[in-house]
């Protein structure tokens, strides 16, 4: 990795990168809010440059990290930073609002929990909990009976073992998120099949980090 801090630099790159991968397309704009220790020390640790580097698709050992803000400017990706106070958040937390070229937007709250490892806390305001270390499938659906079973069946068809799974929803019958951590990568065919299901709004697959 590129220094100086595994939590404030490497973890921050992974947060930026995870946000980019969750958006599913190259971002053209990012509004970044920093909380706690991130807010207090981001300039000294290069946390701002690290988050920007991740948003641009760099890995934690990319020597371009120290220059990522200039690289973002050249690539016409507008990135702004400000500090904030989030409720009950880990000291190293960032909230990222990303916009892609197609107009697609996404808001991710994630924390850097030490040694470069991260924890995704919220997607579009809905609480979630995953590290992105393992292959992770994130399915958004309308809250209705049978959704979990549909996804589980599809994964089973491809011989994929579910390691952990979590369910969240904003309210009964509203918007729900399922997060599956799996032992195998989820193939594109399975993602495509899930996207066809009527109750499913969107499917994102993040392969495990391999940096």
């Amino acid at each position, binding site marked *: *990795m590129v*220094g100086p801090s595994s939590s404030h630099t490497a973890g921050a790159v992974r947060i930026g990168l995870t946000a980019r991968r969750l958006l599913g397309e190259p971002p053209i704009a990012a509004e970044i809010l920093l909380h706690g220790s991130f807010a*207090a020390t981001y300039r000294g640790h*290069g946390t701002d440059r690290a988050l920007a580097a991740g948003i641009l698709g760099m890995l934690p050992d990319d020597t371009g990290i120290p220059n990522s803000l200039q690289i973002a400017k050249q690539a016409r990706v507008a990135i702004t930073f400000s500090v904030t106070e989030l409720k009950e958040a880990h*000291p190293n937390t960032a909230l990222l609002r990303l916009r892609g070229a197609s107009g697609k937007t996404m808001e991710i709250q994630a924390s850097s929990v030490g*040694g*470069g490892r991260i924890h995704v806390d919220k997607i579009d305001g809905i609480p979630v909990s995953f590290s992105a270390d393992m292959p992770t499938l994130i399915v958004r659906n309308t809250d209705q009976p049978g959704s979990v079973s549909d996804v589980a069946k599809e994964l089973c068809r491809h011989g994929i073992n579910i390691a952990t799974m979590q369910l969240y929803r904003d309210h009964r019958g509203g918007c729900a998120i399922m997060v599956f951590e799996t032992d195998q990568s989820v193939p594109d065919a399975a993602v495509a099949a899930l996207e066809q299901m009527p109750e499913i709004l969107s499917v994102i697959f993040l392969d495990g980090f391999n940096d």
Partner: protein
Amino acid sequence: MKLDSFAEIINACADSGKSFPQIVAESNTENFGIAPADAYTRMRAIWRTMLDSVKNYDPADRSASGLSGGDGGKMDAYAVDGAPLCGDYLADVMACALKTAESNACMKRIAAAPTAGACGVLPAVLLPLYRRGLLTEDDAIDALFVSAGIGSVIAERASMSGAEAGCQAEIGAASAMAAGTLVYIRKGSPAQIAAAAGIALQNLMGLVCDPVAGLVEVPCVKRNAAGAVNACAAADMALAGITSRIPPDQIVDAMGAVGRRLDESLRETGRGGLAATPEGKRIAQEFYK
């Protein structure tokens, strides 16, 4: 097996007749599905990064704050001309620790081991052996699986984050990893590896994370040198047959418990310890103005 107990790793070695790093490598494959050959390739890349971060050190480099740089060069010059008190090997250990930690402060590429703030400790004890022909590259890579196993036990039982548990969880963890790794290189037993890790960690118990201006520079750079020298002392004690009175697993648990009790000002917030001294505050004001 889950790598969360020295006692269990020692038992697994005894039951299977396998070495400490073999048990770690096999568990790594079992727990994360990484093929042994891939794990080995990745470990080689980490080792090469350690070598490069010392090789590419430039004593003229300074960090953005101006607080770090040049000390590795000073140590090198002193080792040649100054007849260091600690002797040639430890002088080299300190120089390598300072160089890696200074490179980190200058946003250069390093191998986090286990963290960036503590990146100097492990290469500092290994590179001087390698450069003296006392350690081959293949043996170094094998030995790094010992480091990984020790790190895993500490991460699983306690923490590896200064923000969570103070510097004892970063330099302390790195020092424990380095101590056990040295014992393995010198053909110590799995129990001696664990003893060295435990002794190194107990010696740094309570160490707070108090970076001036919140930067991974003061006192982090010099603590890498201290953590590396502590690792050598712990390794030599373990190799001499000295055991830890408190079992190593319990030392790790105690470190975690101490970490949870540390005030927030002493956990990487840059508000306590050296950061709260008049000079520490002045530096912070200067940097953030």
